[in-house]
């Protein structure tokens, strides 16, 4: 039997593309670990990294400088590089990056640990393939002991992005 429970599916059409996609009311006491999958594109413009911001129990997007992150960017055609930071206002490249419209696409699997817990930080692990440019492996943490109920995909380049975001809870059977 599957241990994944589909909690939310959000599709943003290309005609309704936005630079910040916010997913509310997906984290709860029901699950400790969540799996998020995305396929993203942008309508036009230059490449844009897609960052994570969490949404707290009051419904507010957390923009405080409490995010740490570290990514290894494995470029298909050039030297690999690290993208990392501490005390940032968002976690960069958790959702990879977007470069253009179809047939390009960004595919991501991100696991989020303990977002709803008010006594622990929220951690993430991501594995990404960003179009014909690179694959990225990364980690991040929000250093707040506060309950988070949602998340958002923030386009660093303020470019309009669209696609489908699915959120699953990982059922744990004792």
């Amino acid at each position, binding site marked *: *039997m599957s241990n*994944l429970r589909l909690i939310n599916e959000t599709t943003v059409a290309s005609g309704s593309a936005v630079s910040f996609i916010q997913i509310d009311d997906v984290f709860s006491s029901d699950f400790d670990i969540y799996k998020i999958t995305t396929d993203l594109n942008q309508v036009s413009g230059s490449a844009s990294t897609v960052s994570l911001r969490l949404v707290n129990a009051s419904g507010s997007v957390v923009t405080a400088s409490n995010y740490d992150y570290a990514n290894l960017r494995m470029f*298909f055609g050039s030297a690999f590089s690290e993208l990392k930071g501490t005390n940032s206002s968002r976690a960069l490249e958790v959702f990879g990056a977007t470069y253009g419209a179809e047939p390009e696409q960004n595919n991501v699997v991100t696991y989020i640990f303990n977002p709803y817990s008010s006594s622990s930080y929220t951690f993430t692990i991501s594995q990404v393939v960003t*179009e014909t440019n690179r694959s990225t492996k990364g980690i991040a943490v929000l250093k707040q002991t506060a309950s988070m109920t949602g998340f958002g995909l923030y386009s660093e380049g303020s470019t309009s992005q669209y696609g489908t975001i699915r959120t699953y809870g990982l059922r744990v059977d004792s």
Partner: protein
Amino acid sequence: MPYLGTQPNDVKKNTGLYTPSEILQLEKDGHWGGSLELIAEQTADGTTATIDFLDIKENVYDVHLLTYNNVGTTGTDYDLILIRLYESGVLESGSVYQWANQRIRANGGTNEYKSTVSSSLPPVNNGISNQSIEAINSYIYLYNLGNSAKYSFLTWQTAQIPSYSESQIFSTNFGGGTLPQASVVDGIRLYNTQATGASSISNGSNFKLYGVKQ
């Protein structure tokens, strides 16, 4: 209580506990999400260098999961088990694939591997031989195979005991790649590169292909 209403977006009180009858009803409605369907499984018998998955339900799933379990070879050294894709029944073996890999070795060494003009996709870059402790274990996600309007993308992670010529030092590879052609991919080939002469995928090497239900 599990949520049995309009799915997805069952955002409240979905503890994931379902009775068998509820599961049957959700499956019937096509709402039992997130599980894996085993599409096909193949185990090598040690006599062939290639294994093909040619019925992959690309029109059903937009995400597939492929696993390597205890995969070995019969060659003397540097054999790799790589991936090529079929487009509408035609094997793509041109230098069109793009990919990148990071290897981390248990002795602390790291390596970058990458290509934009590759004839295959490598979830592993470091060969193995026919010694019994050497093996490749991988999981590989494949996206958009059946979508003629999109490229095909893959991500993977591998755990491996490589060849004796690399001192059999445990290593992991992680990375991803693409077939940057908007086409319908309807088959997957796994093949031994036979770097040191004719060799096969060793007896007992197991491959499973799943569809990821959304």
